[in-house]
């Protein structure tokens, strides 16, 4: 099993450009998440999904959109990139639990390092 994979691993954008980050998991998990990690700030939740066809806002959703058309994939889009979106982006997934999303063990991908010039 590959676990959680992220594409691409690195990307450099110019201000105003758009891009999509792809996350894929092969563990049949219901929940999926997108985080950003900035120095000294830990991880912050951008958006999450509780199942195929659903998405919800996390702590820092502005400037991002997401889609989950298939259970195994969770896409993060930046419509018009800004320098403030320079960060490392992590995708994660977790199984269905009675406590809700986030309560079960999250499995993380290796991350995507994005630089916006």
């Amino acid at each position, binding site marked *: 099993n590959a676990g959680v994979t992220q594409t691409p691993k690195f990307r450099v954008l110019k201000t105003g450009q758009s891009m999509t980050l792809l996350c894929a998991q092969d563990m049949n998990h219901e929940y999926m998440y997108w985080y950003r990690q900035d120095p000294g700030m830990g991880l912050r939740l951008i958006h999450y999904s509780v199942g195929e066809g659903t998405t919800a806002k*996390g702590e820092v959703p502005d400037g991002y959109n997401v889609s989950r058309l298939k259970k195994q994939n969770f896409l993060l889009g930046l419509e018009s990139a800004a320098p403030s979106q320079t960060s490392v982006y992590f995708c994660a997934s977790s199984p269905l639990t009675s406590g809700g999303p986030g309560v079960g063990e999250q499995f993380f991908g290796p991350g995507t390092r994005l630089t916006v010039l």
Partner: protein
Amino acid sequence: AQSVTQLDSQVPVFEEAPVELRCNYSSSVSVYLFWYVQYPNQGLQLLLKYLSGSTLVKGINGFEAEFNKSQTSFHLRKPSVHISDTAEYFCAVISYSSASKIIFGSGTRLSIRP
């Protein structure tokens, strides 16, 4: 609103020495608590979690943490560290009333000296 504070941004210790990484949280309702570890250039990995029951939680790699409700703390401990424990450690909290909103602390970088 809930929040998490990791009091130490960096903790240097000698190999085979004990270590404690501190985590305090604030929340007006009951919480679930987690410790995740991030090795260099990797994603996060769950060390342990407290959902309910015994306040002493044992995790992987010899780590344990104790939930202290009165002090709103969830400190991580290991009696004897190894070079391989060099990593960044994140405490995280979810409140019962907002299960989707997991909040991570800013992290503690553990460096092991031989």
